[in-house]
């Protein structure tokens, strides 16, 4: 119909020729590679189901009430529980939360308020980098910082190590939640003459609270499963029992602070620490118990994770309308 140059016809012919032979191959490659990605997804999830299933199967057999309420029996005896480790986990995690939350939340306020200042960029950068520092290195740091000057292992040192570990998670989730607060809302408050800090607390706090809670939950989930930073800070203590400490303290008329000090200022155990020790012992009953510890630990961690995710999703939906 129209004048076309010789070259264009040549290429159309070329393309047409090639297409007949190439198209089937391209389609096959497409189909094969796309199904491969699906296959990879299945492959990646196999370990998850395998681990969760096996831990439930093995751990479920060991789980009973004693497990939660008794201290360990001497080696070679059946029964007994891991009460000491449960208490220790709670103590360490609480300490970590107390140390990590205030600075974490305030730093998140800064990151959300001044994201583009040099300090803001540097803060987010170092938060990201901090989250990549191996937990065992943080353990060494806490050892040098607390254990060595104090001269003994303690739950306090473990709590501080855990706090450093929790910090990035808390900062990041809180910051994300703060950013979700509509800009108009904060400007509205500022325009009404409310000072910056008041705006931060009254307008942003509800949002921040959500961030703190999710960040807190996720951080706890991570901390509760961590072992490496505790190896040479909290060390472990099979005789640890808060009930006994409190009873003795009350009997000796110790003050609240003295009792508190005895709770945090001595080596304590934690669930993952117990699991790590039990799994490597040559006593079958201890190994069996380690599966139960794994089950408790996993349920705890997964449950908190799911809770936090649900919470975040619900919040996001509400804030974004």
């Amino acid at each position, binding site marked *: 119909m129209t004048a076309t140059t010789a070259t264009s016809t040549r290429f159309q012919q070329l393309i047409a020729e090639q297409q007949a032979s190439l198209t089937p191959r391209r389609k096959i*490659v*497409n189909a094969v*590679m796309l199904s*491969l*990605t*699906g*296959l*990879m*997804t299945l*492959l*990646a999830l196999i370990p*998850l189901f*395998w*681990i969760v299933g096996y*831990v439930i199967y093995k751990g479920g057999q060991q789980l009973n009430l004693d497990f939660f309420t008794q201290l360990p029996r001497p080696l070679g005896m059946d029964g007994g529980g891991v009460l000491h480790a449960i208490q220790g986990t709670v103590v360490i995690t609480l300490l970590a939360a107390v140390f990590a939350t205030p600075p974490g939340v*305030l*730093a998140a306020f*800064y*990151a959300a*308020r001044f994201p583009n200042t040099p*300090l803001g960029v540097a*803060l987010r*950068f*170092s*938060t990201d*980098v*901090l989250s*990549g*520092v*191996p*937990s*065992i*290195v943080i353990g*060494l*740091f806490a*050892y*040098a910082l607390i254990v060595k000057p104090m001269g003994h292992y303690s739950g306090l040192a473990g709590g501080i190590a855990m706090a*450093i570990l929790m*910090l990035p998670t808390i900062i990041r989730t809180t910051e994300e939640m703060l950013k979700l607060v509509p800009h108009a809302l904060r400007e509205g408050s500022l325009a009404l003459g409310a*000072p*910056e*800090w*008041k705006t*931060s607390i009254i307008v942003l706090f509800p949002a921040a609270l959500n961030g703190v809670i999710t960040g807190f939950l996720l951080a706890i989930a991570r901390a509760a499963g*961590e*072992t*490496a930073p505790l*190896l040479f800070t909290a*060390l472990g203590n099979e005789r640890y029992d808060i009930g006994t400490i409190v009873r003795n303290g009350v009997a000796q008329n110790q003050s609240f602070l003295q009792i508190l000090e005895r709770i945090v200022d001595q080596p304590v155990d934690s669930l*993952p620490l117990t*699991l*790590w020790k039990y*799994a490597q012992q040559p006593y079958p009953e201890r*190994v069996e118990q*380690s599966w139960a510890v*794994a089950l408790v630990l996993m349920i705890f*961690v*997964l449950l908190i*994770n799911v809770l936090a*995710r649900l919470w975040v999703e619900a919040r996001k939906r509400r804030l974004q309308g």
Partner: protein
Amino acid sequence: MWVVENGIEMTKQISIPPERHWFSRLQRITRHGDSPWQAIIIVMAVLVMVLMLAIGWMLWRESADARAAFGWGFLTPSLDTSWDPVNDKFEAWPFIYGTLLTALTAIVLAIPISLGVAIFMSELCPDWLRMPLNWLVELLAAIPSVVYGLWGIFVFLPLVVTPVGGALFETLGKVPMLNVLFTGPIPPSGASRLGAAFILTIMIIPTITAVTRDVLLSIPSSQREAALALGATQWETIWQVLLPYGLSGILGAVILGLGRALGETMAVTMVIGNSIEGSPSLLRPGYTMASVIANEFAEAVTKLHTQALIEIGLVLFFMTLLLNMVARLLVWRVARRTPQEARA
């Protein structure tokens, strides 16, 4: 400016009844409370950054004697190294080697799988499946390291690693050059560098997948449309357009995964066999930097032993610090580039 502000002050004072004066004064103080507030959050922000420096400085100080005693020889590769707490003679090369070998093997195995999962999640899977998949991958990351280790010792090593290791010994172990890495035999328990590498693969897949998925999702859909409209198949679009577009971000994801693999402690310590033998083979037991610290630190007796372990921690810190910085910069670059291009 000054006059105007003064004017505002004056109208305010006029409008407030005299008995409320104390209140207005308080209000004026709290209004200027902005500076303390900002000071607090700035201090906290600085604190977080100082923390990084403090970690480095502390480990540097606490390893001073070891650094002085062993110098660079502590870190350099050599064939006959010694780790001898009795005679206070320490060289860290076997641990560095074990760390690098297991982490790199894990990365090589994890890249194709993670890319596959990320592509499936961002490009292929139906909407209703995306959320559950996200969750499952996150749960994979949430399982505590010790639980991986426990499962590794009693299930994964005997059922998977031992047979796979045996097969590798039979096949690759006979190939010249490669056989250095595959001399065996693998111990019947399966405790080996190969086992550690496999466990690490499983553990870093969520990291690489999540970042890669975010990178892919951040690519404007106009790029996909451009390729598809030219007649590219979906795979060609992904492979020739999307992956190159997000390349630096994906590279960042991989480096992030490598950082995780280098520092992972508990699971590796439980499956790697913890032995200082001379063999460089993947199929033999070994040690990593993290696992030797985990195993020996609490029981270290001499000062130099403790310090040598801290120095290993210092090296590990620098390695992961470097990798994480590079990775974050790469990921940030993609994130920052995207809006500009979308604006066009």
